[in-house]
C-alpha cells in the first residue's frame, strides 16, 4: 500500500495553463477520484503521476520518496487507459503476461500469476483469444488484469468506463471497486461522470480549469459543496441568487432576501461574516411540489409554472419557472402517476431550511 503525495504541480502547454499548483495526497489503499469536465486537467495530472508527461514544476512522491527522476517504466505503476490500449497483436494471455515478461519472471510463475489475474476478472476461459474477438467489456477486463498482475504500487485509471454501455459500466464499476478493495491497492481514478465518482470513490477531488476546487468523501461533497461549480457539477444543484440581510455570527438560521418570494430561512453551517449578495444551493430532490393552493404554511415558498416534464419511472423531473428567466429543477421520487404535473400547470414549491446551502458570495 502506497501513500502518494502530489505537491505543487504546474503544467503548461505552450501559453495555456493545464495545471496550476495542484497538491493532493492519496492515503494508502484508497480509491481517489479526480472528477471534472473535459479539459479540466485531470488526465494531465494522471499522466504526470504515471511519468508519461513531465511537469513544469512540483513533485510527485511515493511513500515519501520523490519519483520525478524515475522514468515511467521503473515506477511500477499499473495504468488503465480510456481507449484500453490493449496490445492487438497479442493474445489475452500474452497481454496479461506482458509486464511480467518485462520483469523477467520465469515462465512457470508467470503462467500461475496470469491464471490468477485472469480468474480475478473472470477471463480464464478466454486466455487464448485475440483482442479483436473480445467485446469492449472483455477488453476492459484484460487491461485491468494486465495492470494488476504486476502488483503495482499504484493503479491509475483514466476514464476506464467511458467506452462501455450503461449496463456494463455499472457492472465493471463494481468489479473495479471489489478488486481494488481486496488487493488494497492505492488507486487514482479519473472520470467526468459524477455518478460514477460518487459510487466508487473513497475521496473525490473536483477539478476545474487546472485547479482542485474541493476534496472530500463523496457524501461530504454532495451534502456540503463549497462553491457554485462543485454544487452544479456534482448532482446538479439548483443555484439561486439571494441577499444576506445581515451577517451570521455562528451556525444557525439566517434570513436571505429573494426576488421571487418573501424572505427565505437558511441553516448556515458556520459564521458568514459579510452581508450582501450570495448564492443559494438547493438539491432537486429537496424541493417539494404542492398545488398552488396548498402548502401555504411551509417554509421557503416559491410559486411557479411547470415548463418541462420528464417522467423517468422512479423519478419525475420538472422544470418550474418561478420568475422570468429563473427556473428550478425539481425531482419527485416514486411519483404518483395521478398526481403528475403537466406543462403549464401552476405549482407551489417549498423546501426545508436545513436543505438550503449558502454557497459563496456573488463574485
Amino acid at each position: 500500500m502506497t501513500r502518494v503525495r502530489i505537491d505543487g504541480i504546474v503544467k503548461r502547454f505552450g501559453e495555456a495553463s493545464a495545471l496550476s499548483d495542484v497538491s493532493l495526497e492519496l492515503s494508502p489503499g484508497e480509491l481517489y477520484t479526480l472528477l471534472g469536465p473535459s479539459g479540466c486537467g485531470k488526465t494531465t495530472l494522471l499522466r504526470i503521476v504515471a511519468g508519461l508527461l513531465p511537469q513544469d514544476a512540483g513533485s510527485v512522491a511515493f511513500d515519501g520518496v520523490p519519483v520525478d527522476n524515475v522514468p515511467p517504466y521503473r515506477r511500477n505503476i499499473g495504468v488503465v487507459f480510456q481507449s484500453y490500449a490493449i496490445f492487438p497483436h497479442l493474445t489475452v494471455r500474452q497481454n496479461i503476461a506482458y509486464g511480467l515478461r518485462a520483469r523477467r519472471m520465469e515462465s512457470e510463475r508467470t503462467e500461475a500469476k496470469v491464471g490468477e489475474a485472469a480468474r480475478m476478472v473472470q477471463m480464464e476461459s478466454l486466455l487464448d483469444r485475440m483482442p479483436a474477438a473480445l467485446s469492449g467489456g472483455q477488453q476492459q477486463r484484460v487491461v485491468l488484469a494486465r495492470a494488476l498482475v504486476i502488483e503495482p504500487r499504484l493503479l491509475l485509471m483514466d476514464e476506464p468506463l467511458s467506452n462501455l454501455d450503461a449496463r456494463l459500466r455499472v457492472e465493471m464499476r463494481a468489479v473495479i471497486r471489489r478488486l481494488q478493495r481486496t488487493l488494497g491497492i492505492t488507486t487514482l481514478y479519473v472520470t467526468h461522470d459524477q455518478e460514477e465518482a460518487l459510487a466508487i470513490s473513497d475521496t473525490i477531488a473536483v477539478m476545474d480549469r487546472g485547479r482542485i476546487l474541493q476534496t472530500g468523501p463523496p457524501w461530504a461533497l454532495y451534502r456540503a459543496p463549497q462553491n457554485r461549480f462543485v454544487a452544479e457539477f456534482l448532482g446538479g444543484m439548483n443555484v439561486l441568487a439571494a441577499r444576506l440581510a445581515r451577517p451570521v455570527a455562528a451556525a444557525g438560521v439566517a434570513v436571505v432576501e429573494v426576488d421571487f418570494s418573501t424572505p427565505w430561512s437558511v441553516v448556515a453551517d458556520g459564521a458568514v461574516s459579510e452581508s450582501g449578495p450570495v448564492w443559494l444551493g438547493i438539491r432537486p430532490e429537496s424541493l417539494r411540489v404542492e398545488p398552488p393552493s396548498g402548502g401555504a404554511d411551509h417554509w421557503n415558498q416559491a410559486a411557479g409554472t411547470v415548463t418541462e416534464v420528464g417522467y423517468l419511472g422512479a423519478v419525475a423531473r420538472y422544470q418550474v419557472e418561478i420568475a422570468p428567466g429563473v427556473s428550478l429543477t425539481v425531482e419527485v421520487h416514486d411519483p404518483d402517476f395521478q398526481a403528475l404535473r403537466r406543462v403549464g400547470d401552476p405549482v407551489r414549491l417549498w423546501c426545508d431550511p436545513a436543505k438550503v446551502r449558502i454557497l459563496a458570495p456573488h463574485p
Partner: protein
Amino acid sequence: MSGTAPHPDAGPRRHGDAWWVVSAVGFAVVLAFLVWPLSRVLAGSVLGESGWLAFGETYGRVASHRYYWSSLLNSLGLSAAATIGAVLVGTPLALALSRYPIPGTVLVRTAANLALLSPPFIGAYSWVVLLGRNGLVTRWLEPLGWGAPTIYGYRGILLAFVVQYFPLVFLLVSGALAAVDQSMEDAAMSLGSRPRQAFFRVVLPVILPSLTAGALLVFMATMADFGTPMVLGEGLRTLPTLMYGEFINELGGNPTMASTLGSLLILINTAALMGQRYFAFRKAYHVVCLRPLQPRRPTRGRLALAAVAVYGLIGLALVPAVTILVSSFMPTRGPVMYAGLSLQSYATVLHLVPRAIANTFMLTGLAVALDVGLGVLLAYCLARRPSRPHAVLDALIMLAYAIPGTVVGVGLIVVYNHPPIVLTGTWAILLVSYFIRHLPYPVRACTAMLQQIDVRVEEASISLGVPPFRTFWRVTVPLMFPAIVSGATLAWITTIGELSSSILLYSGPWATTSVAIFTQVFSNHFGTASALASILIGAAAAPLFLMYRLLGRQTTVAP
C-alpha cells in the same frame, strides 16, 4: 521537494532520447543524395558554363530556340492530355463498378493492380510489338489492305500513357467511393435532389480530393517518364528525353542545357506535388462510412452496356502485359515475330544477359531493404515527434517522389564523379538512386499507419516496465507490419523496372534488366526484350501476391 527536473526520457514524448540519431541520419541521407545533387542541377541552370548568373544562355535559350521550347510544350501537352484521359476513363469505370451490380468486382480490381505492375516503358514497347512497323496487328491487317494507325509520335505516347495510368485513377477513386456512406446520398435525395443532382452535389465533392490527387500523380508520372517517349517518340522530344540527350551526348551535348531542362522538370513536378499534397490532405473530408454506397438496379440494357465497357477497359489495361507475355514465347527474328511456341527468347536471355538479371535483383533487394529499414525508423520520428525540422525532413523525403529519375541521375553524376567521393562507374551509385527515390513509399505507408495506432498502446507498454526503445520493437513495429509490407511491396515494384536513372548511372557490368530491355528494343531484338520484360513483370508481381496472402485482398498498389 518541488521543482526537481524531470527525468530526460521519462516519457515517449520527451526529447533527449536516441531518436535524434535517426533524424540526423535521415537528414544526412536526404541532403547528400537528393538536396545536394538537385541543387547542383538547379545551380547549373542559373550559373551556366561561365559560372555567374547566365539566365540568357540557359532559360533564355529555352525561350528562344524552338528545339527546346517545343520539348517543354510537348511534355506539358502530353502530360495534361494523358492526365485528362486517365481521369475520363478511370473515374467512370470506378463509378460504374460501385453503382451497378457488375459481377467480378474483385477480379476487376486485381486486374487494375496487375496493370500497374509493368513499368511504363515496357507498356510503350508492347504497343510497338502490336502496332509498330513490324507489329503483330500491323502485319495481320496488311494483307487486308488496311493500314493500322501509326503508334509512333504524339498520339501513340498518349495512348500508352492513358492505358498505363487510368487503372491508378480507377483504384484511387474506387477507394474514395468506398468511403462514401449510402446515407449521404439518401439524405440528398430525401431533401429533394434527383439522383443526378445528388451525385454532382454530394458524391462528387467527397471523392474530388482523391480524384484531384490521382490526377496530379498521373501528371507527375507522365512528366517524368523517360522510356515511353524514347520508345514511341521517333523524334518527338520531351523534357526528360532531351535532357538525357544533352547530358549523355559527347558530341553535340550541352550539360548546362541538361541542367536547365532538369530544373524545369524539378519546378513543374514540385509544383504538382505540392498541389497533390494539398488536395490529398487539406481538402480531404473526414467521412464516417458505416454502409457504403449500394449498387442500384439499372435496366438490363444499361447494366449490360456498363459491364461490357468495364470489362473492355480493364481488358485494354491488361493488353500490354499480355502482349509481352505472349510475345516472349513466340519465335522471332529481329523485330519480326512468328506464330508458334518457343523458349528461344528465354534461352537467349539466360545466355546473353544473366548478369543484368542478377544485378536487378541484387540492387533492388538491397535498396528496398535499406528503404524499409530507414523508412520505418524515420516514419516513427516524423509521426510521433512532430516538430519543425521533422516537417522539413518529411517534405524533403516526399520531394524524391516527384523528381524525375533522369534529373536525380544527372545530379548524382555531377556530384559523385570526382573526389572526395567517387561513385560513378560503381554499383553504389545505382543503389543510391534506387534507395533515395523510393524511400517515400515505406515512409508514407508507415506514417499513415502510425496515425492509426493509438499512442496509448505504446504508453501502456512503457508503464508495464518496457523502456521506450524496446517498446518500439515489441509493440510498434509488429503493429506497423501491414504498412511495412505494403511500403516494401510498392518500393519493390517501382524499383525493379526503374529505367530513367539506371540508363544514366549504369556502367559496364552493372547494366540492369531494364537497361538490357531498352538496348534490346533499340537493337530490334524483340524476342529477348519480351522475355526480359516478362521476367521483370513476374518479379514485380511476386511480392504483390505475397502481400495479398499476408494482408488480404483489400490492398492496392496505388500510392
